[in-house]
């Protein structure tokens, strides 16, 4: 999928995407030209020269300001959007439910909060039945829980082939979780473009993030695919098995094999590199899949949530800590983390500390960032740990460790 957009003196972006990508994240510094790019793609910039693969399809856009028509109420806004809706557009009820705003249907636009108005604006765009939806920071005022649910709803539409979604956001965790591909725009140009995890790695390196997120993909463990249900308790939701020795019992916890119960707990199980990982339901996004295939999912893990355990022998028997998840890894890189306070106090270093964290003197850094390659997989985790731990555990590149992290 090739996209190019030219707006004189503002943007000159060339974006190359995989044909199967349906949810595309767009990020970059303020004033980089992201919104101009979206306006050009939506066809509302008269002077823009745009080439897209969807020339005959319907393109919807939602701005950060919801731009709900104030002369009518929510119902009236949705009715206006329905006037020229595509034949395959979803019903108003479905859109309202998906955007968690059914209760707002009869409210006047002036009575909505910022987040509510954004939800209605997205619902209004969906009611019109776009083939491509451009969201320009359109969920920025929505609380994280509702935001994730709406992203999941949009992602499900993308996965089912009903929609291609382009999302501008400064929240890299959201983009990491849902984007099939990520585009980084700077000074009107496409600086980075590609698979989310690859682009994120480069963005984190470029921008010097202290606690980057890593993206892991795996297969969702369902009741049918469950292979280790012999010890499950019929009464307890979660049972603890300290003496488990089998390979399949390595994650020490078994959750009752019951879909309803899983949803009550809000926990999903995901198999990553042959290991079972527990993830909260709202932190999982689904990937496109072929009929009959197992369900592939994606989730993000923050570097600050990852701890390092050098006792690899007790991989499945960490019975005295609350951290649920564990993955065997090899340390592939160790680098100091920028200390924001020291860089602020050192004006001479301010100019380049942001972009070149590796140049920072380790003496200024209280923490280091470990890049961890997950064993038997080509996936990567980041761990942000203190320099004290680095020294105490005598960590070094090439060393095999266990990365333990809480439920993402």
């Amino acid at each position, binding site marked *: 999928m090739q996209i190019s957009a030219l707006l004189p003196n503002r943007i000159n972006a060339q974006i190359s995407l995989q044909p199967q990508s349906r949810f595309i994240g767009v990020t970059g510094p303020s004033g980089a030209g992201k919104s101009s790019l979206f306006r050009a793609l939506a*066809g509302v910039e008269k002077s823009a020269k745009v080439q897209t693969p969807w020339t005959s399809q319907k393109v919807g*856009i939602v701005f950060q*300001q919801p*731009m709900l*028509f104030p002369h009518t109420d929510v119902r009236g806004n949705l009715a206006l959007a329905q006037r*020229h809706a595509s034949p395959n557009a979803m019903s108003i009820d479905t859109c309202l439910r998906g955007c968690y705003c059914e209760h707002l249907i009869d409210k006047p636009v002036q009575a909505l909060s910022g987040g509510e108005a954004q939800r209605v604006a997205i619902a209004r765009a969906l009611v019109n039945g776009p083939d491509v939806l451009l969201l320009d920071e359109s969920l920025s005022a929505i609380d994280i829980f509702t935001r994730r649910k709406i992203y999941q709803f949009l992602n499900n539409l993308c996965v089912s082939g009903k929609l291609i979604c382009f999302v501008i956001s400064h929240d890299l965790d959201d983009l990491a979780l849902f984007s099939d591909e990520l585009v980084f725009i700077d000074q009107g140009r496409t600086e980075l473009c590609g698979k989310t995890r690859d682009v994120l790695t480069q963005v984190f390196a470029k921008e010097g993030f202290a606690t980057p997120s890593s993206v892991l993909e795996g297969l969702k463990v369902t009741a049918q695919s469950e292979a280790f249900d012999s010890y499950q308790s019929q009464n307890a939701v979660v049972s603890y098995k300290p003496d488990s020795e089998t390979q399949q019992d390595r994650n020490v916890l078994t959750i009752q094999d019951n879909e309803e119960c899983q949803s009550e707990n809000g926990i999903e199980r995901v198999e990553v590199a042959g290991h079972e990982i527990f993830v909260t339901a709202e932190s999982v996004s689904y990937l496109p899949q072929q009929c009959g295939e197992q369900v592939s999912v994606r989730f993000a893990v923050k570097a600050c949530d990852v701890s390092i355990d050098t006792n690899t022998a007790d991989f499945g028997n960490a019975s005295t800590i609350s951290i649920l998840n564990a993955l065997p890894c090899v340390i592939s890189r160790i680098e100091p983390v920028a200390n924001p306070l020291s860089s602020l106090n050192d004006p001479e270093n301010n100019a380049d500390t942001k972009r070149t964290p590796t140049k920072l003197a380790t003496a200024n850094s209280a923490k280091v960032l470990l890049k961890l390659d997950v064993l038997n997989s080509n996936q990567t985790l980041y761990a942000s740990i203190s320099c004290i731990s680095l020294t105490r555990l005598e960590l070094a590149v090439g060393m095999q460790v266990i990365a333990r992290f809480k439920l993402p």
Partner: protein
Amino acid sequence: MLTEFFGASTLEAILLTLKLAFITSGLLLLFALPLAWFLANWQSKAKPLVMSILALPLVLPPTVLGFYLLIAFSPQSALGQGWQSLTGSNLAFSFEGLVLGSVIYSLPFALQPLYSGFSQLDNRYLDVAKTLGFSAFEAFIKIVLPLSKAPIVVALGLSFAHTIGEFGVVLMIGGNIPGETQVLSIALYEQVEALEYSSAHNLALALLIFSFVMLAALYRFNGVTRSDEAR
């Protein structure tokens, strides 16, 4: 009761004035709406020149405008000749001529609020409407006009009130023909000339109260609309 209060001839002038004001403000709205929308979206070096010409009636002495209109309406001019061949009657000193003169004279009072309202309208509403599939005309009818309710009402109110109160232009192009061109302000002038101060008082007071109520209603409407928008 009204006949007793104002007198039959004054009442006739009142009715003629109201008829003139309704027709003028209606025509002005039809004409000024697309013109203001065009001007608000028009970018050109000639724009200040065009805007100045359209705003001239605001600052031009009414007698100057009336004088030029009188010349333009005369049977010797192209406009007057054309009108005469079409209708068989004179444009000058006729009600139709009065309507045309009033439309020109009150144009800036309708145009300015509409131009200002359209210029302040956030274009992103139209961007959204476009992506929702609205044509430019449909977006204007369904989105722009409802969003411009306040400027439209102000434009209507100001052009109506201004037509009610016009004097110089009407006197120049319409004269003082009862039932045809004698409007309120001219009837009042005639009563003063004839030293009929009692009738003049009644008429002047009625005009004063009407103007005050009209302006108060416009300010009230504008205030309510703005607080609605701010909420």
